[in-house]
């Protein structure tokens, strides 16, 4: 090999204006820089993760950040709305035909039942007055106890995170534990409140538990928890002696009268329909699977029930 060779030979034709020594040193410094940058970013992520997980110290920054992002999310939602609506409409169209037959039959049955219920309801109201019976709040019967705040949904739940962000916060008097619903039924409860946004834990979140009852069999009271698969719910703690049937409607049970720890959910909010009822000899309770009425994966807007009575602001 001649001693006076050039870098041009070594790089197969592309000219390089540096010596072998400087190239090697450059490679080393580049690798060092790369490791430093990545190491710093990983450490920063871990620090953020630890601080965010263990305390609320970063909540203020997070709240400010989400306020900045909010207009962009609203704009993106508006842009996507026609496409989303078109998808929902097409899907609904295919579903509607098959549902129509089922529902027509059901309407006929229900009309017959309603006639009976009307008489029973009148009798019930009379007896309640007679006994001066005190009820826990229920919705929509006690709608005047709540201010209803309508809010747009900014982010959707993911498989990891069964929460949504809504475009209303403490500026609309929303507080932690306020109940969130749609026209179809229960959605969840507020778990975090910032100035103009709030975080809502859905009823499918693993930390969610709702006292619920079978609307037809009022003694079948249980706790509604997330089931498996993820978009279903499981009504637990219902005794084997109770009669729960597939198709029954599950509603919030509210609070038993005079309880020191009342349920945050008012009674009678529809939650879902029973899709499976089973029991085995080893379990002491029934196994009941419930499909929520609300399609929690594609919420556009929700209603937050803000109690009118003054309560300490929680955050």
């Amino acid at each position, binding site marked *: 090999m001649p001693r006076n060779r050039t870098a041009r030979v070594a790089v197969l034709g592309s000219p390089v204006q540096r010596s072998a020594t400087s190239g090697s040193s450059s490679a080393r410094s580049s690798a060092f820089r*790369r490791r430093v940058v990545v190491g710093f970013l990983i450490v920063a992520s871990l620090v953020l993760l630890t601080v*965010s997980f263990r305390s609320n110290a970063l909540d203020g920054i997070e709240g400010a950040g989400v306020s900045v992002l909010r207009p*962009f999310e609203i704009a993106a939602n508006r842009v996507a709305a026609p496409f989303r609506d078109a998808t929902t409409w097409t899907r609904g169209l295919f579903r509607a035909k098959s549902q129509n037959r089922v529902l027509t039959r059901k309407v006929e049955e229900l009309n017959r039942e309603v006639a009976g219920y009307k008489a029973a309801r009148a009798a019930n109201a009379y007896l309640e007055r007679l006994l001066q019976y005190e009820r826990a709040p229920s919705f929509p019967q006690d709608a005047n106890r709540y201010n209803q705040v309508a809010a747009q949904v900014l982010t959707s739940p993911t498989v990891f995170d069964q*929460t949504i962000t809504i475009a209303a916060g403490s500026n609309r008097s929303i507080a932690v534990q306020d109940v969130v619903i749609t026209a179809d039924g229960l959605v969840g409860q507020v778990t975090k409140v910032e100035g103009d946004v709030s975080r809502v834990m859905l009823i499918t979140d693993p930390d969610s538990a709702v006292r619920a009852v079978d609307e037809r069999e009022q003694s079948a009271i249980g706790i509604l928890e997330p089931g498996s698969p993820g978009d279903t719910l499981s009504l637990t703690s219902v005794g084997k002696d109770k009669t729960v049937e597939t198709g029954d409607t599950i509603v919030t049970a509210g609070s038993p009268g005079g309880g020191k720890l009342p349920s945050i959910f008012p009674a009678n909010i529809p939650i879902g329909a029973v899709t499976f009822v089973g029991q085995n000899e080893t379990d002491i309770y029934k196994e009941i699977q419930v499909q929520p009425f609300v399609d929690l994966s594609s919420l556009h807007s929700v209603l937050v029930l803000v109690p009118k009575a003054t309560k300490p602001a929680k955050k």
Partner: protein
Amino acid sequence: MIDAVKAAVVLFVAVVVQASILGGYSPLGGPADLLLVVVLSLALLRGAVFGAVAGFGAGLLLDVANLSTLGFTSLLLTIAGFWIGRYGETTARDRFHAPYVSVLVVTVLYAFCALALRFVLGERVPAHAVLTGLPAGVLWNLILTWPIYGVIRRLFPPVDAFDRTYDVRLLA
């Protein structure tokens, strides 16, 4: 500098779209992860450091947008961006299959790492839901890769000459 500004804009748009539109949809049972595809495309075209920084920033922004635990997504995307950046620098940036292989592998690893990280943090680990949705998620991400990588490649044309030269060793 121009690359950084362009990347910031692209990532910001991707975060907004991911958080407000794509996040809640799981067609065929699995969600598409636009942000992951964008970060991997940037990492392939601009290298490990750029990919790691892009992943960190984008992940942080997504965590803020979802009001979730800060640092969770940024940790995963930093590692993904760095790893695929190194893959691009050392092996396969110019190959046709590079973005598809990167997205395929990282989508699967990302899902498992997210599950593992949740387990470490003591949160719920929805392994069944994640694993059953994974094939659809991989499919959507691969479908997204074609247009997204094309757009990113136009915005960030390859600059191979600068970052490949240091791999050459002159023998005495």
